[in-house]
């Protein structure tokens, strides 16, 4: 046994030294514990909660779109999808190989999926397959072995029961883009309205997104659902369109390129608005490949363009009513005054031809409208002058957008002296006034504007704002044009006769449904210059010309003639004469409309005859 006294002290000293060091370190640990668990506790509690709870927003069910009678134009359906969240997949290559095997994906599909994975953020699900049938979906659910990050999802998809006839109006939904985010703000879900009502009423249709709180574990697997707010379904939207009429008009335009607009002359509600040719909304909604898309974009007849509000056409003779009104308003002519039409009108070394080369003879205003005499309006043009014509055109809304509740509308052009100076840097020539008076030259209008103009002529001089959605209250924004009823009556009489008198340009398109007749005006717009030689040797008929050189065929009108309710404008690109193509289309559509709306009993023949005498 040995005792080491001096050494004992040395050992104790070292013990104390080491013990103090440990005590110091334990104090640091306790301090750290205090910092984490007391000082910063709330911070870490928040972080733990953020770890635990995965808050995801779920898009609300999109509002449905119906026609005025509640027929579905855009509906929702279940979309069975297989999706993959890249960041939850350990080995993307291996997983894709397995998926390609199980789902029988083609190499091209796998390539596309890879591209989507590479492009998007890794937390964003990538659709592997969608639009699966229920059978396939349930089968894949069984077949899919456990592949982490791959999930079967029942999503929503948009379906359009009538994919063609309402394509331009309803529009479609598609994958959101950066631009959409700027326009609409935050978008929950993948899809957003890309065109038409789907786009312009996005915020109504979208509804309020729901929120889902789920508890997830470290690998992101959902452990349980904590709470869930399904959000608020988007608002159902009722369009003013009558689907039956729309379908009919669409059918009637088959083979043509052009537009039909049918409008309630008092409310401005569009009962039908067709642009032809159309396209398959479902195809665009599903997403189409580049070649299909380019085919649509590059198509000669521009199927993707809503010609009713984006197509610009010279109004042709449908513009004559406004020249007549401008003349009457400033008492530059009396309705009864006769002007002789010889077929040619000479002015400043130029010859202006009436469409009827042999001439119409003596014409008053109603005659001139009935038979669409150009010479009469050449004379009138010089009396009225471009300033008055320009002012009247602008009063009727030309040169400006109508204000329809759809984006992308065009305003067209109303030429005038200032306009010419600004755009061509040259003075206005009187010859140009003459051309403008018959709706040609620089004048450009949309079919929608023509319908609005016609409505104003028929409703006693109120300029209404067209609407594609249903107006519930009686508020229809309208501007009083301050036209004299007797002046309007002259124009209306001319329009009545143009359709209903044997000499009228559109006599072949007259109709009689339950006592209702149509009033209207044809228009034929030259798109090429007719040379002197051609005039001498006989103008080449449209049927012998290339399609793009043929005349545009126009018709505007309203029904019923005696108690106007609906206005119609028909524009057929390169269709030929207004009377031959546009007017019959307008008649057929009006017949359909009147059969639906005019349930009144057949009128007394006497009343009918009284009308005849009055007009």
């Amino acid at each position: 046994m040995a005792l080491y006294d001096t050494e004992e002290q040395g050992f104790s000293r070292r013990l104390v030294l080491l013990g103090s060091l440990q005590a110091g370190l334990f104090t640091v640990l306790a301090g750290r514990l205090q910092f984490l668990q007391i000082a910063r506790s709330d911070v870490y509690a928040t972080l733990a909660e953020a770890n635990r709870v995965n808050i995801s927003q779920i898009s609300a069910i999109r509002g449905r779109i119906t026609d005025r009678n509640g027929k579905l134009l855009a509906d929702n359906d279940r979309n069975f999808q297989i999706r993959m969240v890249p960041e939850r997949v350990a080995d993307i290559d291996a997983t894709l190989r397995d998926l390609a095997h199980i789902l029988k994906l083609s190499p091209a599909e796998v390539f596309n999926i890879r591209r989507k994975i590479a492009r998007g953020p890794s937390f964003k699900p990538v659709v592997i397959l969608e639009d699966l049938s229920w059978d396939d979906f349930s089968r894949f659910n069984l077949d899919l072995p456990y592949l982490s990050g791959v999930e079967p999802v029942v999503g929503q998809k948009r379906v359009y029961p009538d994919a063609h006839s309402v394509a331009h109006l309803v529009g479609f939904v598609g994958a959101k883009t950066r631009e959409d985010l700027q326009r609409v703000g935050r978008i929950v879900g993948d899809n957003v309205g890309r065109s038409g009502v789907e786009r312009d009423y996005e915020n109504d249709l979208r509804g309020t997104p729901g929120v889902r709180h789920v508890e997830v574990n470290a690998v992101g697997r959902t452990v349980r659902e904590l709470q869930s707010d399904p959000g608020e379904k988007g608002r159902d939207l009722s369009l003013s369109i009558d689907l039956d009429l729309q379908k009919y008009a669409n059918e009637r335009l088959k083979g043509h390129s052009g537009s039909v607009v049918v409008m309630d002359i008092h409310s401005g509600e569009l009962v039908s608005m067709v642009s032809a040719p159309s396209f398959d909304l479902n195809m665009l909604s599903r997403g189409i490949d580049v070649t299909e898309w380019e085919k649509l974009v590059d198509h000669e007849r521009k199927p993707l363009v809503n010609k009713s509000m984006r197509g610009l056409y010279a109004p042709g003779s449908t513009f004559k009513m406004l020249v007549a009104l401008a003349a009457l308003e400033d008492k530059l002519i009396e309705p009864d005054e006769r002007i002789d039409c010889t077929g040619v009108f000479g002015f400043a070394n130029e010859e202006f031809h009436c469409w009827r080369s042999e001439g119409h003879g003596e014409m008053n205003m109603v005659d001139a409208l009935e038979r669409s005499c150009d010479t009469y309006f050449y004379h009138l043009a010089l009396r009225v002058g471009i300033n008055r014509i320009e002012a009247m055109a602008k009063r009727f809304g030309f040169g400006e957008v109508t204000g329809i509740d759809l984006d992308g509308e065009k305003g067209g052009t109303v030429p005038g002296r200032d306009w010419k100076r600004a755009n061509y840097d040259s003075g206005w020539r009187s010859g140009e006034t003459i051309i403008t008076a018959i709706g040609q030259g620089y004048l450009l209008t949309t079919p929608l504007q023509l319908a609005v103009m016609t409505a104003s002529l028929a409703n006693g001089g109120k300029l209404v704002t067209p609407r594609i959605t249903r107006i519930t209250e009686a508020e229809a924004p309208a501007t009083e044009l301050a036209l004299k009823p007797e002046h309007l009556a002259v124009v209306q009489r001319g329009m009545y006769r143009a359709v209903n008198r044997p000499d009228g340009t559109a006599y072949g398109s007259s109709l009689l449904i339950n006592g209702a007749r149509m009033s209207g005006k044809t228009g034929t717009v030259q798109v090429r210059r007719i040379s002197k030689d051609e005039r001498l040797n006989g103008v080449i008929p449209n049927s012998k010309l290339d399609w793009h050189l043929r005349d545009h065929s126009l018709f505007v009108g309203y029904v019923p003639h005696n108690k106007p309710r609906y206005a119609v404008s028909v524009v057929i690109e390169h269709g030929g004469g207004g009377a031959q193509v546009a007017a019959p289309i307008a008649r057929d559509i009006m017949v359909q409309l009147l059969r639906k709306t005019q349930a009144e009993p057949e009128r007394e023949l006497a009343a009918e005859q009284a009308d005849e005498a009055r007009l």
Partner: protein
Amino acid sequence: MSYQARSGRLGQLVSLNLLHAPLMVISILLGLVGVMVLYSVAGGDFAPWAWRHAVRLAVGFLLMYAIANLDLRTLFNLAYPIFGGIFLLLVAVEVFGDTNMGAQRWLDLGFVTIQPSEFMRFALIMALARYYHTLHRDDVSQPFGLLVPLAMIGVPSLLVLGQPDLGTALMLAASGLGVVFLAGVSMRYFIGGIIAAVAAVPVGWNYLRDYQKERVLVFLDPERDPLGAGYHIIQSKIGIGSGGLFGKGLAQGTQSQLKFLPERHTDFVFAIYAEELGFVGSFLLIFMFALLIFLMFSIANQMRHRFSQLMIAGFGFALSIYVIVNLAMVMGLAPVVGVPLPFISYGGTSLLTFMAGIGVILAMERQPLADLPK
């Protein structure tokens, strides 16, 4: 307390009430805390960890009691043979060891797999204590007196480092150096050693494995790789911090139950404990460890033999660095090195060696005046 040897009659077991009760009670309490946390980690289930930990604790208790019965001379005589045996096992691991997670640490003896590096810590301290017991005081700071202990520490440490297990190797070396320090080796060597170690850091850096470099870098800046290597530290801090004052309750810790925490039943077990029992429970646990270590140091101070003094204090120091390094790591104060929390982390070898160590201390404390050869 008397320095009279407490022992039962010859051939009989020493009665439990003759043993140092606080030391025994605190170690068993810590082991039971381990059972509780492991029960909680499994979502309130004794399977798969808690029941095994409980069984090991029982075995460990028996081992401790058995060792506490040993005569001090027996322990003294066994010090070198145990060290030699464990050293051979370490070499065997090098040759035959199972590779687990990229490191050879376990030796499969057929019926049980053991981790010799864990036993080595215990054996090394005892062998060093035995060495200094016989070394004359004047020779402690002499070249020969220095080289032998350094070799005893260095060779096993390098073997463990080669497994590779940096954490255990550092712990082993630190534990051994602790004994050297307590033995009274001149302070100059320690100061010089620290300076040399700091100077060697840039050189040593190049010898670290990539994952080890990454761990150090991530420790310095956890946000460097929040989903990768920094994930452990971040999630562990979130777990501890979100526990607050009183914790979320047993088996209620979202960080652990939802598996955000890594190594929840082994190295990071304290994070779960702290999340579920809060500051109050965590402070209590740290206090228990501190108390245990203080008890060991005070017992060591009462010992008369160099062997007992250095063994008890050296073991207390080893325990303290395990606790300190593990807690510092879990609380984001030290890089992630694979160091378990004594008595609590799941792992048989660790628990058994600590219980065995307590047993040795109990035996020494019981026989302060026993005759030892010089």
